[in-house]
């Protein structure tokens, strides 16, 4: 029988990286920016966090460093899209490629080293898991109940109108991008510090892309992101369980499950958004469009 007391911590751990990255991207997209560089920022965070945790012996400092590193690389994307008005899709892809390369380049020295142990927090879940869970209501509250949150949504919904009201569109978006980078960095560091416990090249293995899909799945809401992250965590844990149980299906086919589940979920939710009468209500109006003020 599957034991719930071990299953729930496993599910929480598996969903935390995606939860952080997707919450960050949620803020970015609500500000009207599509940053496809999540995977790149995650892997940079994974390495920076791991390296710092190893150097200081303190895993929590690792997460701080990962947030800083993630935000730092995201600023390249902000420079390209907010100042130089480059295409967001292409710039995000470039960030992912650059991040993967950069992490591979500087990660060589950290291969085969073990991460410092992270003590368990309340209920056997470490503090970062709790931080992720606490971020969900915090971000919901920020977006729906605060004035800066309203401005952020306004900038994402209609940047011309927001500009007309005197809101600094580019500054708001740059801030959102930095936050998204920090969150992706923490998510990446959770993989290297708390799940795998070591550094391997390309270890994020598409988690950043799954996070992007989960933002669509969430219909651009924080509780929806949590549901998506848990769904993904559930599929991952189930797949690992089936592998461990020695089911007569090749391991390679079982490990496709998270990616196939992501596609399936994306299709279901896109279909609902396409065919429902509230079509397109979730996606921010200015998503993916650059803003250039002529006046």
């Amino acid at each position, binding site marked *: 029988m599957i034991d719930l007391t071990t299953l729930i911590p496993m599910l929480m751990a598996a969903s935390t990286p995606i939860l952080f990255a997707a919450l960050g991207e949620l803020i970015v997209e609500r500000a009207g920016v599509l940053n496809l560089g999540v995977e790149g920022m995650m892997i940079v965070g994974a390495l920076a966090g791991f390296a710092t945790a190893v150097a200081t012996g303190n895993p929590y400092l690792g997460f701080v460093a990962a947030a800083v590193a993630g935000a730092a690389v995201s600023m390249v994307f902000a420079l390209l899209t907010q100042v130089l008005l480059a295409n967001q899709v292409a710039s995000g*892809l*470039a960030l992912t490629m650059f991040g993967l390369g950069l992490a591979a380049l500087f990660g060589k020295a950290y291969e085969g080293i073990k991460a410092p142990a992270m003590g368990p927090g309340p209920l056997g879940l470490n503090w970062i898991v709790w931080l992720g869970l606490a971020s969900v209501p915090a971000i919901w509250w920020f977006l729906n109940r605060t004035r800066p949150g309203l401005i952020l949504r306004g900038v994402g919904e209609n940047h011309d109108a927001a500009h007309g009201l005197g809101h600094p569109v580019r500054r708001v978006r740059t801030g959102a991008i930095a936050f998204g980078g920090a969150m992706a960095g923490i998510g990446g560091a959770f993989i290297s510090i708390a799940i795998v416990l070591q550094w391997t090249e390309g270890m994020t293995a598409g988690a950043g892309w799954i996070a992007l899909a989960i933002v669509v799945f969430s219909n651009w809401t924080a509780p929806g992101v949590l549901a998506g992250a848990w769904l993904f965590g559930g599929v991952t844990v189930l797949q690992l369980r089936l592998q461990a149980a020695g089911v007569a299906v090749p391991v*390679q086919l079982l490990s*496709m499950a998270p990616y*196939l589940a992501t*596609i399936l979920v994306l299709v279901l939710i*896109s*279909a609902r958004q396409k065919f429902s009468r509230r079509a397109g209500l979730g996606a921010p109006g200015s998503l993916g469009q650059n803003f250039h003020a002529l006046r």
Partner: protein
Amino acid sequence: MMMLIPRTETSTGWQIATPIMAVLATMITGGLLFAIMGYDPVAAIRTIFWDPLFGPAASYSRPQLLVKAGPLILIASGLAIGFRAGIWNIGAEGQYIIGGICGAAVALAAYPGEHWWLFPAMIAAGAFGGWAWAMIPAMLRNRFGASEILVSLMLVYVAQKVAAWMAFGPLKNPEGFGFPGSRNLQQYPSASNPELIAGTGAHWGVFAAALAVLATWVLMSRHIRGFHIRAAGLAPRAARFAGVRPETLVAFCLGLSGALAGLAGIFEAAGPAGQITDSFGSGYGFTAIIVAFLGRLNPVGILLAGLLLALTYIGGELAQLTMQLPAATVQVFQGMLLFFLLGFDLLTRFRITRGVPA
């Protein structure tokens, strides 16, 4: 105060100048990076960009240029067409892998018979495999509105798992002493894709790439479909009023780029790679995205960009051997190149002036 004034038409002069500026900026920044890492920057840049063509071991590395440029140009020609229409196939890597597997499966099914039709059948199967893999995101976008970016990208990971499964399972070489990986197609005359002109590295895939450049140029500049694609990218609403169906374009662009990626896959599997292994996907599908942008989504530009990026691959390998530079250096270079390219692109679309606009 610096002001950006949008140009009514993109500047042709800057369109040619900016890729060159981006390459130079990448070299300079790359040099700085090498200096920080403790390598001699001048020697490193020379090893990557000069030595593969004119250095002491050039006769060995020069043929590699076409071997690497072939798949890059083949894939990028297809991707560029979709990018022009705003259709983002970023899963070419997956289509490349599936194309290679499908083509190799045909060869392995016929093994060890020698048939004249085998190689053409493999090519057809490779193109079909890539096409079919790309039609998944196309259909999901047309039917349900699912993002082709995310679906095609997810399918890269799925394709990598398929390759691993094939290498350990169905396509595993029965005489391989238990090692994963298929039979080596280079040792199977009817199925192999050999070097056709000795010393150049040119195999069938290189000729296919040249043909793809020509065909996409004709398509984009002489054919009504090409006009529709350009129209859809520049003014989607106007294109719709002109009778362009977005669904048709999505299926066409994804299908075509998938088929070309699949072709690149089978030429690689039957030629330079020789076999399907769990690491068959080597990143050509992602690098081709950079090639497409560096070539300004223009067939001739892609030809030149493909050769340049091929050079960074070979130069990177050379630098790994002679200077012990890490393998990931090339990846960082390619990422930086795309950054600079996108940044400088500003100059083609805007005029920079001082002061307040009239």
